[in-house]
């Protein structure tokens, strides 16, 4: 049987590749438990004792509760705003079949071609002059950068939502906003999940934009990690413990929602 032995070999190749892919996480984790001296002695083996001292020290130095809170705050508010305003725009653009409407959609699609680095210098300057280099300014910027793809996805999903629903609501005396919020928006839930996932991954991990905007007290996790790492060069035991702490929330979220995440990313990329 050709296929059976092939499958067996492929199974082994898969396991080996899986282990290779996980090895950086393994190396990070085991060395985060070691003392400075133990790391110097060797990085491949297990630690002599599973001591949490490094984690405690890194947790305190990272001021982790504070940076976690900053990250959650920025990400949650930005994503809620993106979902609300992009779905409204996607709805309006799909219900208006005029040339103006098509041109507005085109504008948003074309804006996706503009790389962040080509607008960041004037952006920081303009927002600085308006005294908006703070969390509120950052959230507004995420709306500006995040709305294009989100509107595009909502606009695509709207093709499956019949106009007769709008008409029925209108006859019942609902205004445009009530129609959208009570009738249309709930039907867009699957695409809202996709939009939320794509924007959460991006905003949670973003480093460059917050590094230009936020002060150290309001630093998000990636930003705080950068300061922290600069402090602990040559002290890998603490640096690795800090890195482990920083990625735990992401890994936990990933294992709970991996199916939705992979589907969402697939949908966002292929369209």
């Amino acid at each position, binding site marked *: 049987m050709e296929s059976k032995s092939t499958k067996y070999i492929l199974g082994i190749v898969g*396991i080996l590749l899986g282990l290779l892919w996980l090895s950086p996480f393994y190396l990070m984790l085991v060395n985060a438990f070691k003392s400075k001296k133990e790391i110097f002695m060797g990085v*491949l083996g297990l630690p002599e004792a599973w001591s949490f001292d490094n984690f405690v020290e890194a947790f305190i130095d990272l001021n982790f509760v504070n940076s976690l809170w900053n990250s959650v705050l920025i990400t949650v508010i930005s994503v809620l705003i993106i979902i609300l305003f992009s779905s409204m725009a996607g709805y*309006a653009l799909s219900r208006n079949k005029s040339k103006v*409407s098509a041109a507005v959609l085109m504008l948003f699609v074309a804006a996706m071609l503009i790389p962040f*680095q080509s*607008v*960041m210098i004037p952006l920081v300057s303009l927002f600085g002059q308006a005294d908006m280099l703070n969390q509120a300014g950052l959230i507004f910027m995420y709306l500006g950068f995040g709305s294009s793809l989100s509107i595009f996805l909502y606009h695509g999903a709207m093709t499956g939502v019949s106009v007769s629903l709008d008409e029925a609501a209108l006859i019942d005396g609902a205004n445009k906003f009530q129609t959208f919020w009570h009738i249309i928006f709930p039907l867009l839930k699957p695409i809202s999940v996709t939009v939320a996932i794509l924007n959460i991954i991006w905003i949670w991990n973003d480093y460059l934009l917050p590094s230009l905007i936020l002060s150290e007290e309001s630093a998000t996790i990636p930003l705080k990690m950068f300061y922290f790492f600069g402090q602990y060069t040559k002290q890998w035991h603490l640096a690795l413990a800090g890195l482990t702490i920083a990625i735990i929330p992401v890994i936990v979220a990933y294992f709970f929602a991996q199916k939705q995440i*992979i589907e969402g990313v697939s949908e966002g990329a292929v369209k």
Partner: protein
Amino acid sequence: MRNRDVSFWLFLTPVLLGLGLVVIVPLIYGTYYSFTDWNGLSANEFVGFDHYVRLFQDQAFLSSIWFTIKFAFVTVILLNIIGLGLALLVTQKLKTSNLLRTIFFMPNMIGGLILGFIWQFIFISVFSDIGEALGIEALQGWLSTTNTGFWGLVILTLWQMSGYIMIIYIAYLQNIPGELIEAAKIDGASSWQRFKSITFPLVAPAFTVSLFLTLSNSFKIYDQNLSLTNGGPYESTQMVAMEIVKTAFSANEMAYGQAKAVVFFFIVAAIALTQVYYNKKREVDL
């Protein structure tokens, strides 16, 4: 909704304000100021194309572009080969398929900055320990030379992004009708023949999507560059995005940095427009 309806414009106001103030206005404002002696706050003099002439003679900028092109070329090819390979592997209905898909995609969930720090440890400490144990001289001193810095960035990117490209290929692979493969099997086609004549042509659109996605991503990389090599040694592994950030925010040459940013915009837009052109062409061909 019609154009003259107030509600149409009300629904669009928040996103139009966002896009306008965050992307469109800065792009126009910045492009204008790249022709002046702007210092980030005010401009006194119009300098014409001076910044643009200067950047084409700027060794640091030119070498960052060249380094980025080399990096993009190598990663695009390897990412697509590995991404397709992983996609073919996890669609073989192995017992471990779902678990493997989860593992391969995992690095994508974590930010480039943090991944770069983890790999800095691996390249510096782990590689040197393995090299010592096995007597391989080539594993010593990683990231301390331009060459190892380059390959370090490539390896990090492959590890991070392959799972993402895999997801794209899986989406197309799953659209291949199973009967097609079955029919070819009955006709006696070998697995290589089936791959060459059925799978590959049907997955070709995924190749275009992934190719341009990886290409434009490779050009825009910043976080990984910052945390893995910080451009070192001697700025020899500095990519375009980092060069622009440093010109503007370390050297404080705002107008000159913006001129570089405008050139960068044209490069990335050209890549994207080529993709749009190819997609349109393919739709016509079908």
